[in-house]
């Protein structure tokens, strides 16, 4: 009881600190952005950025605009799709590489050659090879999470305490039992970490891919996603909207990571005790 009270206090204090820090940041931003107007002298760099109040006004105008929310929806859909595909392909691949030496010997070298290629370097190739723009974006997003997930699963499954396996073997566990009841749960924390990192990369990649490919199947506008939203704001000269787009991505990324953290916490309850 006392411990939970203590953490409550800690959290509220941490939350307060966060709010204060954001407030101070906003004040500096506002003053810097209005430096020319207020002091007759433009501060370097920040003097060119639209002030937060203008960004906020622009944002309130967009909140009622369905195409802004459509951008959120499209980006989320792509991130979710690419991420899920990366999990579905990446987790079994990582596990297979960890448990089967022959497969590891065959798959790992080519995996290691492909891994350093940044997902964005795949954009031109995937535009050529995939039939639709939507699929090219999804593919590049998939790559963003895929390598990180595989590497984490592989590392986690390979570093299992050997004595867990020996203990299970002594107690009569079959190969399948050992895989299901030892290897899988022992790798779960690495899967959670890998997907959290992968999720972050997915957001980085989807935004860039949307900018480069011009926003997917609908050719921009409502179907473009947040990356294309920023790009079209830039082309249209609405600097406030660029900032709105950027902050929107920040919030979207935070929401995804938080959801994943919660889910990960539910899947690995024993780690809370450490």
């Amino acid at each position: 009881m006392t411990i939970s009270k203590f953490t409550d206090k800690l959290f509220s204090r941490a939350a307060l600190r966060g709010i204060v820090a954001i407030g101070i940041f906003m004040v500096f931003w506002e003053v810097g952005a209005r430096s020319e107007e207020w002091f007759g002298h433009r501060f370097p760099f920040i003097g060119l950025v639209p002030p937060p109040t203008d960004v906020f006004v622009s944002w309130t105008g967009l909140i009622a605009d369905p195409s802004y929310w459509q951008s959120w929806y499209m980006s989320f859909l792509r991130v979710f799709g690419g991420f899920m595909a990366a999990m579905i392909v990446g987790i079994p691949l990582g596990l297979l590489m960890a448990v089967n030496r022959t497969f590891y010997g065959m798959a790992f070298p080519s995996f290691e050659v492909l891994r350093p290629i940044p997902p964005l370097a795949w954009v031109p190739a995937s535009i050529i090879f995939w039939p639709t723009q939507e699929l090219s974006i999804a593919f590049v997003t998939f790559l963003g999470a895929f390598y990180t997930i595989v590497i984490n699963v592989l590392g986690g499954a390979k570093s299992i305490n050997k004595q867990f396996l020996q203990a299970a073997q002594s107690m009569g566990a079959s190969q399948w039992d050992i895989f299901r009841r030892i290897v899988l749960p022992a790798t779960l924390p690495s899967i959670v970490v890998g997907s959290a990192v992968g999720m972050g990369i997915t957001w980085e990649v989807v935004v860039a891919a949307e900018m480069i490919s011009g926003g997917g199947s609908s050719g921009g506008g409502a179907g473009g996603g947040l990356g294309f939203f920023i790009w079209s704001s830039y082309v249209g000269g609405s600097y406030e909207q660029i900032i709105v787009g950027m902050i929107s991505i920040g919030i979207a990324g935070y929401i995804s990571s938080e959801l994943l953290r919660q889910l990960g916490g539910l899947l690995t309850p024993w780690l809370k005790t450490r």
Partner: protein
Amino acid sequence: MSAVINENAGSLDDVTDGAISIKDVVKIYDPDGAAVMAVDHCSIEIPAGEICMIVGPSGCGKTTLLNAIAGFHGITSGSIHLDGELLCGPQKPQAEPGSDRIVVFQNGALFPWKTNLDNIAFGPMMAGKMSKAEIYEKARGMMADAGLSGTENNYPGEVSSGLRRRVEIVRALMNDPKVLLFDEPYRALDSLTKSVMHEALLEIYYRNKVTIFFITHDLEEAIFLGHRLIIMSSRPCKPKKIVEVDIPHPRDYSVLTSTRFREIMNEAKDVVHEEAQKAFEAGEKEG
């Protein structure tokens, strides 16, 4: 509990299973062609139900012997029998791991993702000979006997290291093993916790008599727990001196200050010290 623990607590007469016979076992490791002899023509006879303490300096090859009995490693020559049945020998260099020989590991091997109760139920669940309800009833009963009530739904990471060790011993016993193999399980514990664990282990032993093959480098621990000490020479490992501990069971911590305890200590100390010295001079590292 006290009904079971009587003057016959240390008697092995009622134990029929779990006699280990180690004959002429040699284990040579061959990393990169440089043969290293870990165990050298080692023969030990352990009667059923005995607490046999294998005492020797760290890294002398005791664990190699334990791994051979458990079936985690093979042997180079010789043979090991359990109750007359061949575990490993000339035709079969490596024993099959089995639930009749359960290891309690040095650093503990409770599954951190399972609760204490699920850990304890793991062996019988794998064996599949009892229904789930029966297994969990037995598990709860054994936890209660070992003073672990109230920690059933905790994860191992949530309880003290002393309790974790106790959970691990109960998990081992749930398999109805003939032999428990202890690989310096109390090494990382502080001496106060250790003394509590020793009494707890004896108490569990008096209730479930199985053969105990216990590796340690702590002479006090060895004399307090064991029926017999096998003092091993440093690498290669072979028995150097056998010391009978004729202090009657049940024992408690008052034994530590008894005259007989000191006498046995003196008898064993010189040999152990000599081997430790040798190991030290040979540059053997801890572990």
